[in-house]
């Protein structure tokens, strides 16, 4: 929903832990943002980790979040060296649920997310992309890399 508080928005999700070429994802996100006259907002979610021997889980989560912020900045600055002001978010929690919530929070009309080659487990459990596509209020565009689709 577009309001004064929420300008037209395309939410782009990035997993900084995965190292692959995001040119295709960024091209498509940028194209859709231009078409909708929307801003791009970038989101990375640090997934829950079972910290079975940590007596300072909040400290470890803070460390993981800081690392994700640095990696996210590195990815974005590689593509848009002067895009320092583009809204960037890093959150911790269940990945699909957090993407859906942040999309609501920023008033996204479109969520653009990347999907890698599906593993066997996704047939039983479903992927993050399928959960977001099923439950988000915004439209969801899932980008498959040309190589992964082959």
């Amino acid at each position, binding site marked *: 929903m577009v309001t004064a508080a929420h300008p037209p928005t395309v939410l782009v999700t990035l997993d900084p832990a995965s190292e692959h070429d995001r040119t295709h994802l960024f091209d498509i996100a940028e194209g859709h943002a231009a078409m909708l006259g929307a801003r791009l907002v970038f989101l990375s979610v640090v997934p*829950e*980790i*079972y910290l079975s021997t940590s007596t300072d*889980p*909040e400290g*470890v989560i803070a460390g*993981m979040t800081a690392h994700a912020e640095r990696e996210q900045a590195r990815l974005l600055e590689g593509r848009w060296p002067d895009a320092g002001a583009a809204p960037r978010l890093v959150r911790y929690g269940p990945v699909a649920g957090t993407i859906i919530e942040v999309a609501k929070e920023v008033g996204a009309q479109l969520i653009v997310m990347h999907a890698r080659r599906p593993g066997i487990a996704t047939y039983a459990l479903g992927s993050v992309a399928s959960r977001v596509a099923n439950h988000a209020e915004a439209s969801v565009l899932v980008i498959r890399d040309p190589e992964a689709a082959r």
Partner: protein
Amino acid sequence: MSDNVTAAATPRGLWVKFALPSLLGAIVFLFPVPNGESFTIPFGVLIDWVNENFGTLVSGLLIAVTVISAAVTVAFSVFGLGPKQGFLRHVFQVSPTWMVLRVLGAVFCLLYFTGTGPDFVISDATGGTVVGFLMKNLLALFFFAALALPLLTDYGFMEFVGAFLSGVFKRLFRLPGRSAIDGLASWLGAAPVGVMLTVQQYDMGVYTRREAATVATTFSIVSVPFCYVIAKVVGLEGVFFSYYASVILIGFVCALVLPRIPPLSRMPDTYANGAVPHDDDVVLPGETLLRAGTRMGLARAAAAPGPAGFLRNGVQNLIGIWFGLVPATLAIAMIALIVAEYTPLFTWLSMPFVPVLEWAGVADAQAAAPGLVIGFADMYLPALIGADIASQETRFLIAILSVSQLIYMSEVGALLLRANLGLNLGHLAMLFVIRTIISTPIAIFLAKVVVF
């Protein structure tokens, strides 16, 4: 206080803030105290005292923790109740998998304590080991560790000791001296804390990718308090110091070998993208080790919280661990033991290792073999599966493997996969296998010749 302020100009209050908590922490977690014919640590004495004198209270607390955790997690995660940001949300808003584990944790706990569950839940080998023993010990461990471990990790002790070890790490392991502090963070604090420190140093340009991967997969050892619980699970707390010395020795041998062979030796010596290579500044030119340790220790103490912050952080961590971690650990350990006791799955998986262990003269090789592979999933599992083995040498081997295999996917492995150090699942599996191959014969030798 900045890192370059001289010790001479340091106010007396900061010296006290550095020395007093560090000394207290060292006494609680590292100081040997007599325990029958052997030695233990005061931390172990505290855990035993709580379980011996307040057993019923701890059982009640365990029920309360698991039931409240399950109820609040369902309320937050299914019905969207609770705050939208912050600590409570971190703890209680989780994915469906974690929610199911917490609910299962509460169910297993209730079934065990009321004695109404089926045999596979309440038998001594499953519920008795996990709920009746491990979780009660972990509840007490987390209580004391969450409140007292920061004394050892947050007030400069590991920086002080790290300075003295930095030269050894440089010469023997071909690593920057800073890695001594990361290693100590794992040893004294927790493996994930050590991993995150290493990742931070990599991001800052202190380590190359090879160095960071080496530190994280070689020195992220299980911390002292958890080693004590593992020793207790397999009934070897009476030889805790021999056990822990063996763990250190094996870790040392692995640290000598692993950086020199693939996959670690083949990792690129490149810095993180965008990071400016940063000099190793543990010991500055012309500085003695004592001065370097004091400088870093004081700087760490200056940044550490005062008594109120210390208490607040400790209580917050305790709530996070008790309600977030304990129920899921209970469920995972129960499921693993039910599978181990009531299905042949682990027997099949570990079949190739039985002849090897028999050849090495390991008693109860059939029962010990699953311990060689299951540690890749979680650190507690080998010890839980091996707790009932009759031979103490074999239990010693299993307890050593529990903490020496180091790459368990439930925690350290998962963090490493997210750390952008160039380590993939194949690398981690290979490192796990190499560590197991190195650790097993040494542990067998120590068990047969030195310890017993």
